[in-house]
């Protein structure tokens, strides 16, 4: 059959569209964070603050690592290196797992005060979405690693998912870790 592979398979198009909507849900939370800050007296209020700066930095590092490994897996798939792809998938799963734990701790750190003020609630929400995205990244990478799958489309889905994670994490980090502190 006179047909060749496309740069972006249909599954990637689906992910792109789904990713737009997921990012838009998260974007609505980010909008909420800033909208509420404009009406509030102090944001964050006295005695409350963003989650640990160290965890924030570590998470940012893991995002870069995971996204890098996913991109590597994608390239290795094209090269047909099964062992390399599997290692990259396993690495991405580990990075995602560690980041999921860190962001879950971020959520947990905000919960005790969340009923008193909107700030910790919104911060927990923003991190909750990212934590769920990390969790999903683990599941995707794990399934690919276990099933020993090296199709280009599948690796593209994983790489795309990590791109989405970056899109979710960057505004979260900027709003919570940077903007909250310069207030």
């Amino acid at each position, binding site marked *: 059959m006179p047909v060749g592979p496309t740069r972006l398979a*249909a599954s990637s198009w689906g992910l792109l569209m789904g990713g737009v909507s997921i990012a838009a849900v998260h974007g609505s939370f980010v909008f909420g964070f800033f909208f*509420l800050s404009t009406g509030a*007296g102090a944001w964050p209020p006295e005695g409350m603050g963003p989650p640990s700066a160290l965890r924030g930095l570590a998470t940012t590092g893991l995002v870069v690592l995971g996204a890098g490994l996913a991109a590597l897996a994608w390239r290795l798939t094209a090269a047909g290196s099964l062992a390399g792809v599997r290692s990259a998938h396993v690495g991405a799963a580990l990075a995602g797992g560690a980041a999921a734990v860190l962001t879950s701790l971020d959520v947990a750190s905000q919960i005790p005060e969340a009923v008193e003020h*909107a700030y910790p609630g919104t911060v927990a929400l923003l991190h909750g979405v990212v934590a769920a995205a990390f969790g999903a990244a683990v599941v995707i990478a794990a399934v690919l690693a276990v099933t020993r799958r090296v199709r280009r489309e599948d690796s593209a889905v994983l790489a795309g998912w990590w791109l989405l994670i970056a899109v979710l994490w960057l505004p979260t980090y900027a709003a919570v870790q940077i903007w909250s502190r310069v207030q």
Partner: protein
Amino acid sequence: MTATATGTAVEHAVLDRTWSSRPGIVGWLTAVNHKQIGLRFVVTAFGFMLVGGVLAGLIRLQLIVPRAEVLGPEAYNQVFTMHGTIMMFLFAVPMLEGLGMYFVPLMIGARDLPFPRLNAFGYWLYLGGGLILMWSFVTGSVPDGGWFAYPTLTGPEFSPDRGLDFWLLGVTMLEVSGIVGALELVVVILRHRAPGMTLSRMPIFVWSILLQGGMILLAFPAIIAASLMLEIERKFGVPFYDPTGEGNPLLWQHLFWIFGHPEVYIMLIPATGVVSAVVQTFARRPLVAYPLVVAALTAIAILSFGLWVHHMFAVGIPMLALALFSVASMLIAIPSGVQVFSWLATIWTGRVRWSTPMLFVAGFIVIFVAGGITGVMVASAPFDWQVHDSFFVVAHFHYVLFGGVVFPIFAALHYWFPKWTGRVPGEALGKASFWIMFVGFNVAFFPQHFLGFLGMPRRVYTYDPGLGWEGHNLASSLGTGVLTLGILVFMVNLAVSASRGRIAGPNPWSADTLEWAAASPPPSYNFGELPVVGAREPLWAPGVDLDERTRAVTTALRAPTAPGAREQLATTVVDAQIVEVTRLAGPSIWPLLTAAAVTVAMVGVLVDAWTLAVLAGLGVVVGLVAWLAPRSPA
């Protein structure tokens, strides 16, 4: 013209075996074919429309005379809330997406949607969300915060019972289902059009579904986010909207209308797509100014995102912003006008057959223009302050929603009925149903404009005699009765025609788009030989000369190239050149099981059964893995 050679009987049999759903109840539960799923959306949405209609009937019965006692104040709040909610969330959008799911693949020469299992999942999620909302009637805790559910009224303090939880969780599921459907439709349109169907040759209905899909992907997330926040506030006391904890109820209003205003156009744009299809077919000529209509639809889609604040003119918005939003609200009249002039010019210069779908379209144009005029009136902030929350607004949005959306939907149901059933619906009863509905609609809703001027507020369960409102209310309620009769006649007509109508053949209306090249009803695989398009009106234009490569591909795909392979052509986005052959997933029970797990998780949250919710949540993960996990290393 298309190249749709017939293929051999053997090839058809093999294709049918490959693309058919399994037989029996298992087959029904595991089905993923776009026609089955699309039709399920259409039928279920029609059913919900009837429920919403019964609630509308109750409202009008209560308002027929002053101090009537059909509904008390609480029940009235519940009934108008559920009426609005059902019509907006359970009827209009799913109905239009369902039509898109059924017809878009046929219109663009594809065999199915790109993610068939996801599509089935979307339907089951829609059903689950709908059932959660309906369940509220059984429990007696019916949502009563209006279709836009403003906090703080809907927060834990003022709406302590479960009613609003049904609303928030049900609506969230419905919106996720809407996104899933939109994703399918956008990808199929961009990537799976028949070779040669460039963007500029795409039917207007397909354009309208593409734009609707894009809008859904961007607009629905806002209400999902808003609803999640409100549900968290209600369940756990996090004060997102509660000013005592530095929350702000205006956040809901912004997020809701970022969704809510485009929502109106999410319904209107595909409805006008139907209108363009019907006008073209029954005027028997190509639509006048096709490029302008595409530009107008696109402009409406973009502008509609800039309009949300006009629902909030009365909350105290800075003057400059007010002026800008007023102008943007009025601007949208221009592209809407372009469409209306295109239809009128097509009708004027064509040889019109006034069959039933065309009558519904004519009725639509009249009512839509009236609704548009009152729309421009309320887009002016000072006028809006006068009629805000009065029956003038109720009249305006029913002119837009019923006239602008329901009439085209009825046109579509009549127009495409032969494709579904293989039989042409009766004309006499069809025309009668239109006239009864048209008269009934206007008698029901025109007087409400005057009620608004006379100061009758919306959402108030009764009124005193002597305010000068009796006559208009009586007329409005009687008109509703006539309208209902018209809908019943329409339904009887279709029910009778399904078994006794004239045999349709592939193209009973001599229409121009590809769905009419397939048999009626279409086989599971839609087309034996995949169509190739050389003109904007493929069935009206002379045949295309196929190049070698295209001929080789379409010939090869007259049968699966591997046993059981569901193959579909992928083409380039702009000029629809063949790029590859993709393989689609087949029937599976996992979409249903996963959607069921989501529904159970929601029920768990609803009734505070947290263990159940967590277990069902885990079930969702298991379901997704089982559904998506690749079966074999490739």
